[in-house]
């Protein structure tokens, strides 16, 4: 908002100074801040004011540049981890399939978001998709609950879906992400929430400029059995002989829990990468905007300076010619 007002002021001073400097005061009702700083009777904006503006914009530019570099280095660190964890959930999908269209009674939407802001639109897209899933899966027999990871989604979802929220977890990235931490988290979720299907919403990291919101579905063992009977990918599950000393049901249960924690681990890492990437591009465009603004302010400053010099010269010369003539 302040930046837009500044832009308007910069443009307004150009026509004001050249033809009729006397109308300067009357034609600036929308620039209250600058009016306050100029004493009445001054016919142009003082160079001091413009210089202050330039200093503050330059500081902002430096800060956003630094933030971009910090985000870039954090991204490098976490990107290798995310790529290594990608191989882990693929065998699960190969064995059990990913069925987003499974029709179940109790859906749980796990929304993964960031804790800090200034990262572009990724959190809003995650929340939009979660809300969409909620709408899609609410009806006479079905219900949807939320599990929220991260401050930003919490802020947005607490406003209108407070009664549907089961669990909120924040400050995930206080310590560097590792599998043990995430598996404990997954354990907590599985213990406290009844579910038939878990839908994890996160931003998948494709490249530094592209983050795609994705939904991964993990089904509970009973639903897996049900879908296996109806054939398709899961129908092949029965062709596997099961080893391990326990009943098939128990093994499927263990498998589902392991699958959930692996998929969560990957989702959390990918979302962290997307967050850093989005922050990089947001800070980059912010520094570029600050640079443009600085250029415009420099032009204004030079015009102001030259106008004041011209006015002084005119006064001196007309005074001298009046004395002579």
């Amino acid at each position: 908002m302040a930046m837009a007002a500044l832009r308007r002021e910069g443009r307004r001073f150009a026509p004001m100074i050249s033809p009729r400097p006397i109308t300067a005061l009357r034609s600036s009702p929308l620039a209250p801040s600058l009016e306050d700083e100029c004493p009445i009777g001054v016919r142009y904006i003082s160079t001091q004011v413009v210089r202050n503006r330039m200093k503050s914009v330059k500081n902002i530019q430096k800060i956003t540049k630094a933030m971009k570099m910090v985000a870039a280095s954090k991204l490098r660190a976490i990107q290798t981890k995310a790529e290594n964890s990608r191989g882990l959930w693929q065998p699960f999908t190969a064995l059990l399939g990913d069925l987003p269209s499974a029709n179940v009674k109790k859906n749980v939407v796990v929304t993964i978001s960031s804790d800090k802001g200034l990262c572009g639109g990724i959190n809003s897209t995650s929340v939009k998709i979660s809300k969409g899933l909620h709408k899609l899966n609410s009806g006479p027999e079905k219900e949807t609950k939320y599990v929220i990871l991260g401050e930003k989604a919490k802020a947005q979802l607490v406003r209108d879906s407070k009664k549907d929220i089961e669990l909120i977890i924040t400050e995930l990235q206080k310590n560097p992400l590792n599998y043990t931490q995430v598996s404990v988290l997954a354990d907590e979720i599985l213990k406290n929430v009844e579910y038939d299907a878990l839908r994890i919403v996160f931003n998948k990291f494709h490249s530094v400029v592209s983050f795609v919101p994705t939904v991964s579905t993990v089904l509970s063992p009973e639903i897996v059995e049900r879908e296996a009977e109806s054939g398709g990918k899961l129908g092949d599950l029965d062709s596997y002989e099961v080893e391990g000393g326990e009943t098939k049901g128990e093994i499927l249960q263990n498998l589902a829990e392991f699958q959930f924690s692996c998929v969560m681990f990957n989702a959390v890492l990918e979302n962290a990468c997307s967050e850093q990437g989005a922050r990089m591009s947001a800070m980059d465009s912010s520094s570029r905007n600050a640079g443009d603004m600085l250029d415009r302010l420099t032009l204004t400053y030079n015009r102001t300076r030259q106008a004041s010099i011209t006015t002084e010269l005119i006064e001196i010369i007309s005074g001298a010619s009046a004395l002579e003539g």
Partner: protein
Amino acid sequence: MTLNLCVLTPNRILWDSEVKEIILSTNSRKIGVFSNHAPIAATIDIGILRIRLNDQWLTMALMGGFAKIDNNEITILVNDAEKGSDIDPQEAHQALEIAEANLRKAEGKRQTIEANLALRQARTRVEAINAIS
């Protein structure tokens, strides 16, 4: 017929190439897998995985997980794994002693269970080093 083995942990891919035979310890017993094995989904306990490549045996310590054997492709997903050659003998023996001491000191159900788990992991790592030599 070539058998392809893939060992994955959450942090990295530990092994992804062809082998001749493996010996896997599941929760109930040890199974040996050659090429053209029947499809199996198995749970793996904390134990040793032996890999044979052309008359040479390698050991790996696995910390529990799942295995899927299907169509000459073996996929093993575990919480953590270490190659026998990567484990430092000194450090592994020390870890074993610390784990045994902790077990003796443990009070209460939860600490005993954790100490037992740590002990089994330490023992597996020591076994993995001994098995190659």
